[in-house]
């Protein structure tokens, strides 16, 4: 029983980070309607930025968010403008390949500049833990979880209550109608991509106190984020949050009770299953997913 609770807690904690990264993808996927296979590379760049700020200037990773988040926001805007916008009207297949190429380029630029080394930073709190009734909670992982939760809540309220947020949601719901209603869709695409990149970057910043950075660190996260978005449903922030937690918990339970080697296979299996049984996602509204599937 104690072990079960411990497994659950650990799963929820890592699930929070998955959720945050997936929220970034969901924004981009939902609003801009592009399958961004370079999503994990945004995470990778943020992790490198945080790493170098710490290494060179001794900046605390959490503090470096002040610099890294705006930087990656603009990087996202730039990607949308330079890479994605020209292929906005191309087929989904073409878009997939443009972003696959982008991911290849970014990974190997990282390799050229920073080599294949696995880089980690050392902080005073890297291995500090809280212990509550024999349940151990890693402090940086707890921080990651709480910050993820808070920022997803923030985004949720932004989308719900501000004018820009409503416009973004309108685009997710129906792109054409939104355009007809006078929403300047192209501009909001830039915003969505930038925001999506910033949220993903935040995920990277939260990961770095306990995770190494290397050129291909983003690859598994790209797939996880897609799985979470499909589970949670397109355009649904709460769905994405729950989907992220779900993947984290399933992975940890599978790893502990089946085999650590198969934890990825388990959630890939679940992914295929969900796609088949409920392609609109476990928590999704359905409409958006159907539509992008049609393209």
């Amino acid at each position, binding site marked *: 029983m104690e072990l079960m609770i411990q497994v659950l807690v*650990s799963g929820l904690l890592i699930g929070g980070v998955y959720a945050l990264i997936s929220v970034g993808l969901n924004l981009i996927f939902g609003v801009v309607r592009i399958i961004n296979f370079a999503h994990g590379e945004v995470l990778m760049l943020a992790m490198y930025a945080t790493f170098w700020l710490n290494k060179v200037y001794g900046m605390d990773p959490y503090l470096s968010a002040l610099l890294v988040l705006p930087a990656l926001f603009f990087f996202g805007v730039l990607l949308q403008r330079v890479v994605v916008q020209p292929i906005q009207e191309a087929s989904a297949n073409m878009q997939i390949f443009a972003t696959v190429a982008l991911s290849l380029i970014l990974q190997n630029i990282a390799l050229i500049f920073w080599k294949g080394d*696995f880089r*980690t930073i050392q902080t005073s709190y890297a291995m500090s833990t809280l212990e509550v009734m024999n349940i151990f909670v890693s402090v940086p992982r707890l921080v990651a979880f709480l910050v993820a939760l808070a920022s997803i809540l923030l985004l949720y309220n932004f989308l719900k209550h501000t004018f820009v947020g409503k416009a973004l949601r309108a685009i997710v719901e129906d792109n054409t109608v939104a355009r007809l209603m006078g929403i300047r869709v192209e501009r909001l695409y830039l915003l969505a991509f930038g925001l999506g990149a910033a949220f993903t970057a935040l995920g990277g910043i939260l990961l770095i106190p306990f995770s*190494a950075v290397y050129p291909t660190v983003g*690859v598994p996260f790209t797939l996880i984020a897609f799985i979470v978005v499909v589970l949670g449903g397109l355009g649904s922030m709460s769905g994405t949050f729950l989907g992220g937690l779900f993947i984290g918990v399933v992975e940890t339970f599978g790893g502990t009770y089946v085999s*650590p080697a198969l934890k990825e296979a388990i959630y890939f299996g679940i992914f295929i299953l969900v796609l088949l049984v409920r392609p609109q996602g476990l928590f999704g509204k359905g409409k958006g997913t159907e539509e992008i599937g049609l393209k």
Partner: protein
Amino acid sequence: MKRQSWTLWLFLIGLLALTASGPVAAKDLQIGALYPRSGSLALLGEESWRGAEIARLEINKKGGIGGDSVVFVNADGHDVAAAHSEAERLIEQSKLGLILGSYASSRSMAATEVAARKNAVYFELGAIANSVTERGYQTVYRTCATAFNFSKSQSKFIAEWLAPQLKKKPSEVKVSIAHEDSDYGTSVADSFKNAAKEFGIQVVSVEPYAANTSDLSPVIFRLRKTAPDVIIAVSYAQDAILLSRQAAEFKLGIPLFGTGGGHSLKSFQEALGDKVEGVLNVDFTQYEVNSAFTPGLKEFVALYKATFKEDPKSGHSLANYMGTKVLFDILAQTKGSVEPNAFRKAALSMNLPEGTTSTGWGVKFGENGQNLRADPLIMQWRGGKLVTVWPKAAALMDAVLPK
């Protein structure tokens, strides 16, 4: 119409020309150098290549082999398919009869197959999978230790040193293996199971995991349940760090015994700080070792610093340096000839006792081309350094029981 078919022809001819562009100038002694130098294994692949490169620079400074200077034709075997076609290219296009390499076992398996089938000599300096020298090929040689040698050193150390420390018989010591699930981790874990049997040590659980994971808590939970006396960990760089960090977070409190790979790296120590203290490890010879046992090591480190403007990242460069020098000794005997029979005769006649090379290894090739005198050493992280602790001849200090 006509023009189009001409352009197509021109195009095809151009492609052929591209793929067949000529070899480097003659008169040099050319050797293929095949390492993974991009992709996920780039870090230690590059480090391995550096060791061979230093040996090459050194011999050329001394006038080369029989007056010919040594030139490497470098090749990147970043995955198995690439290793295969690069070996083909080196042998068929560059007309080389001798390749050295290759750090990663799966790449080595593919490349040695190609070389052996074409009767070219393959000189393996760093890959440890047992099977590299177990296929009965007459032209494949290996100077470094095998996975089985690693496991044997570990088992012997557990039986002879750890068991008495725990006040147990070797047969009462319980061992768990946590290994990453690529060919490296899997083959080392298998070897350990076999070696443990020889020493009567019980392996109570085996936990494979994928090296690119960002959470190893499932492994920790499973280890906590089995509660072994010592954990044999077979890890690459990032997962070695993660495993130790999470072991500390969950206060696992079981001694960790690394198996080369990530546990030897400076980045492992940097990431863990004082938590690294006491972690045991078995590996190729590293730099904190009794210098009487490893003549030439200090000179190597100095050369490395002079050439690459930094400290060696791991012992991989040293092992490749030592192996390349052995290769040059053989070539000096054959006067630069790589004709397989002459090479084999010279190689099998090599006979150096242990403690006479920069790694401390001796040189005596078995019929299968494996160097029989390349035993890995046991070391322990002490005061931020990976200090050799066993066997006695190589040790700088005695091992202590990790907390």
